[in-house]
């Protein structure tokens, strides 16, 4: 059985449907968002454990309805935790993980993603545990939408959750993440960050195509 696990968002509304469901293609998508979100929310020390992340991602991706290469992470020997932390700070510190920072008007972007969360019964605050436009929060939201798609008994809601996934990907996540991935890789990201960035980039593109195709069908 699969259930969602939110870290940057909290549930505010009563929801229809069960809180856990049999694993299937859709929960697999939710699970991948869950792992990727957790990675970008993790502390430098936690994020450094490439083996753990690749294992978790592979497990999550088992039932995915489309091809997705998890790959393996080769963390160079001799990288100290201090090195990791310094590298993490250099590449992901400041506003690097904030989608709003990539836009002219961050406040508007925060208001916009917040409104998306709210309409689907979720809330975030600026403070805890991370901003509404943080990459991990945005991935959390996609995780939740996929889970609800899998769990809801209403065909109308299924369609709505799918549309919301597509729109959120197009209007928010895909609007800044590919640029952020490219820039971070170009800045010399090491492992396992480089692996995670490439997986993120590939998964977002594949999932977008999948959702669009499903909606078209």
């Amino acid at each position: 059985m699969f259930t969602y696990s939110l870290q940057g968002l909290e549930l505010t509304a009563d929801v229809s449907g069960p809180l856990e469901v049999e694993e299937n293609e859709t929960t697999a998508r939710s699970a991948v968002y869950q792992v990727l979100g957790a990675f970008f929310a993790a502390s430098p020390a936690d994020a450094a454990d490439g083996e753990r992340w690749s294992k978790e991602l592979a497990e999550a991706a088992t039932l995915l309805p489309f091809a997705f290469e998890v790959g393996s992470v080769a963390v160079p020997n001799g990288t100290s935790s201090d090195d990791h932390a310094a590298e993490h700070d250099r590449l992901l510190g400041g506003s690097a993980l904030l989608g709003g920072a990539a836009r002219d008007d961050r406040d508007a972007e925060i208001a916009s993603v917040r409104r998306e969360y709210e309409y689907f019964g979720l809330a975030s605050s600026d403070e805890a545990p991370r901003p509404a436009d943080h990459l991990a929060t945005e991935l959390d939201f996609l995780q939740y939408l996929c889970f609800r798609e899998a769990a809801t008994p209403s065909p109308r809601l299924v369609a709505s959750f799918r549309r919301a996934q597509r729109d959120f990907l197009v209007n928010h996540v895909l609007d800044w993440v590919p640029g952020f991935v490219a820039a971070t890789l170009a800045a010399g990201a090491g492992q396992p960050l480089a692996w995670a960035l490439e997986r993120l980039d590939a998964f977002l593109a594949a999932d977008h195509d999948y959702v669009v195709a499903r909606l078209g069908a």
Partner: protein
Amino acid sequence: MHSEDVIGLPRSEERASEDTYRSRWTWESVGWGTHCVDCYPGNCPYRVYSSGDRVVREEPSGTFDTVEEGVPDANPMGCNKGACWSQQLYDGDRLLHPMRRVGERGSGEWERISWDEALTQIADSMLDAIAEGGPQSIVREGTPEVAAVFPTDRFFNVFGGRTLDLHPSFNDFSIGLHETFGKWNPASSADDWFHSELILIWHMNPAFTRIPFYHYMLEARYHGAEIVSISPDLNASHMHADYHVPISSGDDAALGLAMVQVILEEGIADTTFIREQTDLPCLVRTDTRRYLRASDVRGGGLARDDQLFHWDPEQGLVEADRGNLLLHGREVALSGSYEVTLANGQTVTVEPVLAMLERQLQEHYTPELSQAITGVHPDMVRMIARKAATSRTNIMLGWNSCKYYHGDLIERAMCLLLAVTGNWGKQGTGIRSWMIGMADGMFTLMVKTLPGVEGAEQLLAAQEAGTAMMRAADPSITTEEIAVRELSRTLARVQLGEEGTMGMRGSPPAFWWYWQGNYRERWNNPEWGDTSLPRTFDEYFEEAIANGWWTGLDEPRPEDPPHVLIECGGNMLRRTRGGATQLGPNLWDRLDLIVSIDFRLNFTGLNSDIVLPAAQHYEKVNFHIPTSHTMRLTLSDRNVTPAGEAKPEWDIYRLLLETFARRAAERGVTEYGNGTGATFTPADMADRYTLNGYLTGEDQVADEIIRDSVYVGTLPEGTDLARMREVGFERFIGWGTSPYALAQASPIEMEKTHSPFRNHVELGDPFPTYSRRAQFFIDHPWWTEAGEDLPVHKPNPRSGGNQPLRMTSGHNRWSIHSMNQANPVILQTHRGEPLVEISVEDARARGVADDDLIRVWNDITSFRARAKVSPGVRPGQIVSYNGWDGHQYADWKGANEIEAGMVKWIAFAGGYGHINYSMSEWQPIPVDRGVPCDFELDPTPTNDGR
């Protein structure tokens, strides 16, 4: 750019006036605006230019896209009121602060008070009212001003107040359309008019009332259509018509029936259409003059009473299919008589409705006979009838016919003309009323108890469960439209009274007027009603109550008097037929508190105890009436902050609920009941109103409306407030769930104009009537008793006296009701004070000259206005265009004071298929056209300052 740049002149002090002028035409920001009032269909997208937090001007955006190739677009969309709307944001009658009267009601003496003082006094009065008579003693009439509707509805739902059905308050209920189609609101898109070949402007004056859309009629004419204007007077729409049919006022049923007689007699009727779409082939027993029913043929028990029959030349007696109208070429009988053996062994003769109808037409409504009623020459009748039979014909119906006592008969005759000529369900055809729908988020917002998508889903799922129950109970319900309508009829009788957001009590206002406004006295005047009826008004009324036709709805009873009245966005004293003359002593004086929430101080506000200033359009986020006439949702944005201390209605109600909770706590009121067993807790009402703070303000509310509409499937995916702010409007892509939208019964094709009823014609979807067809024979016992089972002509009753003249009305060109009557720009475009139009002959006979002040009177009372002597007005007629506010007349007595407010007596009927109440549908409606009156030169011209 300065002037010297253009013509090389040096600038000097003397040229400062140019700068003044230039500064008027500079702005800092541009946003979207429209005027979300009852200028229906309106929806004109405007660009609003603001400077220094003041709107400096507006102009039509001209941005509606073309829908169908070859059909003109709607642009520029606008009217004279809209073009100077911003004047009213800063006019003298603008309400800027909460005010409380200090003198008598209506004395005009006010003091400015704080919001807190105002809300505290209102909250205390509400608590007093609840203690004395429950929350249902706090009452509001409905209002068509869409900006005020959904916050007010949600507010009343939360605390359990009483809301009166809005439709009778302004009486645009096309009752004859309802009697015929089981729904009153087909509404084609305005661009569909372009497809017409014959346009009958009938009970409408579109040059005045449809300013943004009138061009479609002219363009249709350039495209080859002919326009016929049918009216007693020569009005502005007559000017571009090909023919004018000068008919005596209110006698239109006779004209319509005469045209039908010609078409049937000349054999030019569309018999396939008649057979499939109407009840005209249904069989009627000649012994009882009632339909032949399955219960007759098969006996009681399981046989349904509403299963009717056709006569098939090959198969004999066959059931008229209730599930689908298509006959696939079968030619069921339209004439002849047949023998049928009933379940009890009796043999009876039956004949199709059409056979009875033809006899009646032959006997009473040949063109020659109708001329004696209408004054219309038989040649004219025949000419128009033949054109209608061979053309895509469109009856441009306003909301004038429905304001006649026998307006239903007029409209039934119009529908019959369309039926025999095959003129609905095709582009360029049909008849119209008004509709609201598609923006389903507006409706979910009134009642949702959960935020976001979950709340919308909960409501949709509930409706689905309800319609499934309806279908299970009656398998002949084959369409969503009928299922939803049946559900609405059922739910209308259930006073949910639940704590939460479904708490308000809804009532048809006829009972409010009857018991609380003392209209009982007027309605029981036998001289003022239909004198052909064999019984008194109260005999019908009491029978209706005894039969349970209004059970759960016939409120508020005398023992349940109102205490607090809240009028928001309306102008009840100006609007109500009978006005202050009737409401003053009978209702107004008994109320403990009257609150008016508006952006201007109107006549009702002047007679209130507390007035609260609402934000104007351009100062709040809202949408125009979502309607199939325009097929678009149009945004009016907050371009500037509200003037003075004004607030959007949404915020006013939230603050009021917070104050109410505080005062309830201070007075020890923790909960109260509403008489139905439900309890309400003041402490958390504001939270329920805002869904625990989820609906933080008007941006969030507007966005929720849009997103819920997207969820329901009526707006394109991805639409939200941010997108609307970019483009100003969005085209609807689906009908959604409301009965009025589903009533269109047509597919939405994005590249085609909308013409209602296509599903009835193309797919054979049944109509939501008793017979499941367009129904011209209504064998309800009251219709039989009234001699109205078939469409007939009846003279207009003399509601108000036996005077020789008749006052008619209509919307004016200069104002949306009373809303723009004090706009200084608009005032300069006409005579600038209340007037009535009178004929040259009547003026001469009474020694009245143009612009004289005259007194217009009948048995009820009188009012004074300027005389506009017009050769366009027919002798015997007085035209009083509506909209002047009560206080603009001498002595604060307007034209509505001489209206009796009579209702059609048999409109209290029920218990017969579509002759049953549901919200804003079947119910008694007060009428105001053809008011008996006379006039004289005013003997005491108190307001004549010239």
